[in-house]
């Protein structure tokens, strides 16, 4: 069988997609940890094991993600922006704008009708625009990041963050907790702050519908809702938004555009 692998070595998680023409893909995700090379090897082997395959079944591996340049892995390497766009395009061919909220950076990507990137903007200088801000606040609130979205939907009075900085935002959250502000209002406030950073990115590249949200941040339904409110549009979210770049990488491995 001719299988192709896409591996997305992210700052937080490493994701693998195994793909072949005419069959369902396989996905696997592990934490990246401190050693990206080891994480990539482990993620691939575990993904193959789950699918009942071996490395001999793999024709080509496309590596992507922020950890990729630091490791010599894969048959080829490509930027996560291209891979994310390609992955989203395969699910939603009508999408022209992709918002990718990762653990360490967010991206706004404009794509054409073939799923190719025509413009993009990245917020990588500041943690406040990424999933990292949510993780920090979830830790302050002592909740699982997975529960943050559902909990935040209960908010009726989101905290207005006076700062756009994740470090100051953390202090502000601590003060709010001390004051007795409900956790959902603090979370909703953080989501609004991130949504406003996302809106700034969108302003830089322009927006064309349809618009999709992917990356680990898209798993947070609260963040999706706040971003929709901020942008005044409905966002398409694929079933496994955090796996889109890995899937796009696997597509590139099998059919280079």
């Amino acid at each position: 069988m001719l299988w192709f692998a896409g591996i997305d070595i992210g700052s937080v998680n490493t994701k693998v997609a195994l793909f072949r023409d005419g069959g369902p893909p396989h996905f696997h995700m592990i934490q990246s940890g401190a050693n990206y090379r080891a994480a990539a090897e482990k993620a691939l082997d575990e993904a193959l094991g789950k699918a009942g395959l071996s490395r001999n079944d793999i024709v080509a591996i496309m590596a992507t993600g922020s950890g990729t340049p630091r490791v010599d892995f894969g048959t080829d390497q490509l930027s996560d922006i291209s891979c994310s766009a390609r992955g989203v395009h395969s699910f939603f061919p009508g999408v022209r704008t992709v918002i990718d909220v990762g653990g360490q950076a967010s991206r706004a990507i404009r794509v054409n009708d073939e799923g190719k990137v025509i413009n993009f903007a990245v917020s990588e200088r500041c943690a406040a625009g990424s999933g990292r801000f949510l993780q920090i606040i979830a830790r302050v609130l002592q909740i699982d990041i997975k529960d943050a979205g559902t909990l935040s939907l209960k908010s009726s009075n989101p905290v207005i963050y006076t700062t756009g900085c994740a470090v100051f935002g953390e202090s502000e959250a601590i003060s709010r907790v001390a004051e007795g502000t409900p956790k959902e209002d603090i979370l909703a406030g953080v989501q609004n702050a991130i949504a406003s950073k996302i809106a700034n990115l969108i302003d830089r590249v322009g927006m064309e519908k349809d618009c999709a949200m992917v990356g680990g941040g898209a798993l947070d339904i609260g963040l999706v809702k706040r971003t929709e409110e901020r942008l005044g549009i409905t966002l398409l979210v694929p079933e496994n938004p955090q796996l889109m770049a890995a899937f796009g990488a696997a597509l590139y491995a099998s059919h280079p555009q």
Partner: protein
Amino acid sequence: MYFAGIDIGSTMTKIVIMDDEINAQVIGPTGAEHRHLANKVMEEALSKAGIAFDELTYVVATGYGRINVPFADKQITEITCHAKGVSSIFPSARTVIDIGGQDAKGIKIAGGKVVNFVMNDKCAAGTGRFLEVIADALGLKLKEMGELSLHSKEKVRISSTCTIFAEQEVVSKIADGVPIEDILAGLHEAIASRVFHMAEKMKIEKDVAMTGGVAKNVGMVKALEDQLGFPVLIAREPLLTGAIGAAILGKELVIKALEKGEAIEKGARLLEAASFFK
């Protein structure tokens, strides 16, 4: 006549009591759990000066927590107070670079008055907070960080601007075996460069005085002097310039009122806890 200046910063509360010269000075933490304790710092200052609260002719509050101090007669911004305080200590100063626990400011002064200022309170990078976060990550005391950085032979450039990403970068550099003093020298350079470029927007003029808690860090002083290309002036207690300025401004107000034969407008003057959440 006694005058008090109280500077409630994000991290520290500073109080100065003076007549013709400084009678008492106290620096206590503002910290979350001490937020309501500005009155305790005041009581300590009064007892050091050996006077009763009623003997204070005028009390001026400044700093980020200056609003809602129930025992102050007047609030004046910290920019104005720093300019006044620095001018009283260093009459030749034309630029003040103040790096506090949560912000950084550049102030241009002439004749003890503010002519221009720039400020960053939006981003932790380029403030004392950046150093605190890194000190925590490395298990070092703030004081040690500056001293250690002076031993650097080959400073390492820190590529991250964001405090959170810089913290990660530092941890991974330590794991790569980079000497800690070289990393620290790079960190100090990163902050100094950020603050320098902010202040340079209003064209830095000599002499430059450095104030705020970060001026106590020898590594930061050196890093800022490297950016400027000349030495800076530092008061014996660089945390107190805002409080000193506040006390002097209070004194000037009272003297002016007395000369004109006008009444002095005073606050309600309750020596009780300040509230920050009203």
